[in-house]
């Protein structure tokens, strides 16, 4: 399952939604304010411990001045790759 997030982790309550991820099969794309999760090491580590693949829109991190602060494990992507993940790599998606 591919999860899509575009609201700030505090607004979307991402921390409490971690239980919806299934170990080893899921990925999360962070768009816009959701990219703020990339600088929350504790949150990133919780997701990584569940083997969730983490993607974030590079331009959105840059717009928020946090591109250099993001956790290493987060893979930077553009909209083209986001579409590839949605259309080809994962059969289903859920917006959280």
């Amino acid at each position, binding site marked *: 399952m591919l999860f899509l997030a*575009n609201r700030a982790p505090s607004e979307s309550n991402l921390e409490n939604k971690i239980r919806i991820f299934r170990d080893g099969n899921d990925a999360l794309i962070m768009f816009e304010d959701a990219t703020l999760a990339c600088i929350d090491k504790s949150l990133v580590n919780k997701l990584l411990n569940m083997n969730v693949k983490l993607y974030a829109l590079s331009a959105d991190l840059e717009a928020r001045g946090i591109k250099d602060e993001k956790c290493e494990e987060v893979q930077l992507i553009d909209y083209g790759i986001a579409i590839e993940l*949605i*259309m080809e790599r994962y059969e289903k998606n859920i*917006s959280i």
Partner: protein
Amino acid sequence: MTKTLTILIKSGPYMSMDANLAVNLAKAAVEKGYRVNIFGYGEGVFCVKANQGPKRFPNIGKELVELSKKGVNICVCETCSHARGLRKGEEIEGVKIGSLTKDLFAYIDASDRFVVIGR
């Protein structure tokens, strides 16, 4: 066969980045050769209001007109539009004010992927 993406946008423009996300995903999908449908529901119907004039943000109306010219099907819920006083004739060119049960269901039926944006 070309795959189809349908995007449901439930937020209006400018109060959040939801409409921008819908537009940016649609643009990228079109560039990659996918067929794209966009359906506006709830406050999302305001994305297709004509004569939008934001001073500091990308104009969602104009972006949608450009996407429509590139073959993207755009439709908004008639009941949601009526409830908000958005009348037929006030929408941007290339947009249908249609039905949730007919048009959105037809979009979903013909789609390989369905993305929901907004709350």
